[in-house]
């Protein structure tokens, strides 16, 4: 049937910035021939909030709460990431118990985010029953989070040098009870996703991103792991209490939306494992240490594994009580380029689920860069090629050789 459409005229259809498929503003301008996607133009930038600049105007402790509001779903990841960078700058020893509690909240957040994603994925393929079921079960973890932190979304549990609330043995018991129910439900969803034929029809073979492409386009998080790349900050660069916990990095070789679904669902089971270990091995001791208001000058980069992938925060301090620069790289920015590749030669009907499959957070990603060419001091704007050359040179001086990275990556077939 599609061959007969070949003679049809191409036309452009706007998906977004306002569209039922999108929960946040983002513009996809899709060129169609019949039902087939010929090209996609992406445009971000509808929800710029100036958070980075606002951080510079506030003290470190105020910034913790501001940074938490970068994302409504992975809020804890952002605040942990920021707090870690500041703690590194201030050479602050965070108590063990605080690190464990941070890990606990991070994993609960991952559970709530993955359940949320499962529901959205169901909705995008027109399977609202899955949406209703998974969001109902998500309430369990939301209640647990509200019980521990006092909030459902922006938990406000992190502070520089520890956490603000301790966890009592009764709360721990409730968490374990909730986790047991959730584990049972998750197994049921894994069964549905891997056996229900209309779901498999809509997911498998859709939005293919080969391992090579995933490496080249810098995909991260579940998107990369579903393409067979074992990349997880929790394992690669352990933070909080992850180095003391045993868990597996889930990968899948389907390379499509089906693979991403399976990876997320199986990751939930790993999260339950982590939570049980955290609650079992929760060390005694204080939950926070006193931190001076002024942070010593310096710069630090910190990484966290958000439910969507690697989250990077950069903090530069000038010795006062306010940071000089805060830079946030939300996970979606790393994955958004891969969407274009995934949509190639697919049908319009696949577009919502392919976009949803990277679990996008467009508003968290929005940053603004102004290049003022009239400014004589900053005449030399670096282009992408110059920047690559500069970074290769920079690392060569330090003893690392990153030239011809592409061919070297190809040799590493065991990643």
């Amino acid at each position, binding site marked *: 049937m599609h061959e007969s459409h070949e003679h049809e005229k191409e036309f452009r*259809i706007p998906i977004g910035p306002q569209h*039922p498929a999108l929960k946040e503003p983002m513009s996809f301008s899709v060129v169609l021939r019949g*039902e087939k996607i010929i090209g996609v133009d992406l445009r971000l930038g509808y929800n710029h909030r100036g958070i980075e600049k606002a951080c510079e105007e506030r003290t470190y402790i105020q910034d913790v709460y501001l940074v938490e509001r970068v994302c409504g779903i992975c809020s804890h990841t952002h605040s942990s990431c920021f707090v870690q960078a500041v703690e590194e700058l201030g050479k602050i020893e965070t108590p063990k118990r605080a690190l464990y509690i941070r890990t606990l909240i991070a994993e609960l957040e991952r559970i709530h985010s993955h359940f949320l994603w499962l529901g959205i994925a169901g909705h995008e393929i*027109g399977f*609202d029953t899955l949406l209703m079921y998974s969001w109902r079960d998500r309430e369990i973890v939301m209640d647990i989070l509200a019980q521990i932190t006092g909030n459902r979304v922006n938990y406000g549990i992190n502070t520089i040098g520890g956490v603000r609330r301790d966890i009592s043995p009764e709360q721990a018991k409730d968490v374990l009870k909730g986790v047991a129910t959730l584990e049972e439900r998750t197994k049921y969803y894994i069964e549905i996703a891997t056996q229900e034929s*209309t*779901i498999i029809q*809509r997911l498998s073979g859709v939005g293919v991103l080969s391992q090579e492409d995933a490496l080249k386009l810098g995909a991260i998080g579940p998107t990369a792991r579903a393409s067979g790349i074992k990349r997880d900050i929790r394992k690669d660069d352990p933070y909080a209490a992850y180095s003391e916990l045993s868990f597996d990095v889930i990968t899948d070789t389907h390379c499509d939306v089906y693979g991403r679904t399976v990876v997320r669902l199986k990751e939930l089971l790993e999260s339950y494992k982590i939570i049980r270990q955290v609650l079992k091995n929760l060390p005694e001791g204080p939950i926070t240490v006193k931190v001076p208001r002024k942070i010593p000058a310096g710069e630090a980069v910190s990484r966290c594994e958000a439910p969507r992938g690697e989250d990077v925060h950069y903090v530069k301090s000038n010795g006062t009580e306010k940071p000089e620069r805060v830079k946030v790289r939300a996970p979606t920015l790393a994955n958004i380029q891969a969407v274009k590749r995934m949509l190639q030669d697919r*049908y319009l*009907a696949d577009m919502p689920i392919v976009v949803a499959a990277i679990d996008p957070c467009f508003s968290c990603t929005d940053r603004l860069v102004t290049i003022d060419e009239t400014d004589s001091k900053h005449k030399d704007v670096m282009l992408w090629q110059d920047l690559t050359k500069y970074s290769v040179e920079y690392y060569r001086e330090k003893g690392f050789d990153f030239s011809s990275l592409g061919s070297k990556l190809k040799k590493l077939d065991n990643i």
Partner: protein
Amino acid sequence: MSAFFHLIIFPGFLFLALSGMVAEFIDRKIYARLQNRVGPPWYQPLADFIKLLGKEDIIPAEANATMFKLMPLFALTAVVTSFIYIPMWKTDALYSFNGDIVAVLYLLTIPTLTFFIGGWYSTSLYARLGSVRSVTQLFAYEVPMFMSILAAALLANTWTFSEMTFFYSKHPFYWLFNLIGFGVSLIALLGKLEKAPFDIPEAETEIVAGSFTEYSGRLFAFFRLTIDIEMIVGASLIAAVFLPFGLTAKPFVGFIYYLLKILFIIGLLSLIRTVLARMRIDQMIDFCWRHLAPFALLQLVINLVLKGILY
């Protein structure tokens, strides 16, 4: 005067409109309960209808206003007309003529065509994509549906519904031969009503509301009423053709039978749309031609053979 009563009040337009709304409520309620939700109160469809009547009709400046306004009326007229030829709780329909099976099937195709034309003339990109999908889908489900209904008629050796139901009441267990056709036309009805897994023409997450994207106010209310009535008409059609029992009972008992049959069919439709995800248009056409059409053909062959044996 009696004709007027039949056409406008019972079992004509008013009865149909109200039962269509009840059908929508039942469908939504079952769907909601199966999804672990509370669901709408019983008056919700009526409240929606009244609210829409009170809203402003917005017609896009680019659209062809005449066609845009006419299509909801065409759709409504077609489904209401088709209803009077379908037997419900008696063996004979309200009106009947030789060849009314073809006429009803034809009348039931008109709503889909009006969705196409209405969507096309509203000139919105989403509406156009939706309307093209409507028609593409029409070609896929219509043929299996026709074949399975005509197979049942073939066994009864008639072109009218009334004679067909009369035949099946005289031979009480013959309807069991048509069970394959029942399944086929039930699935095809899902396509006709544009419900999941065949809600491709109005896939919200892809093309907003499909053909109805630009419709609002009264015109949209009539389109929605059409779909509600189509659900009742489609269910009555399937009940008359494939579940033709209890038609010779006393009028009141027959009416109860009829309601139960309709409820059963609507319940099945709701159940199917609860447990399945939306298909892609290419998958839908593949499914209809590769699976549905051969089954309908099988039914046709079975009935041909049976006809040779039974007569």
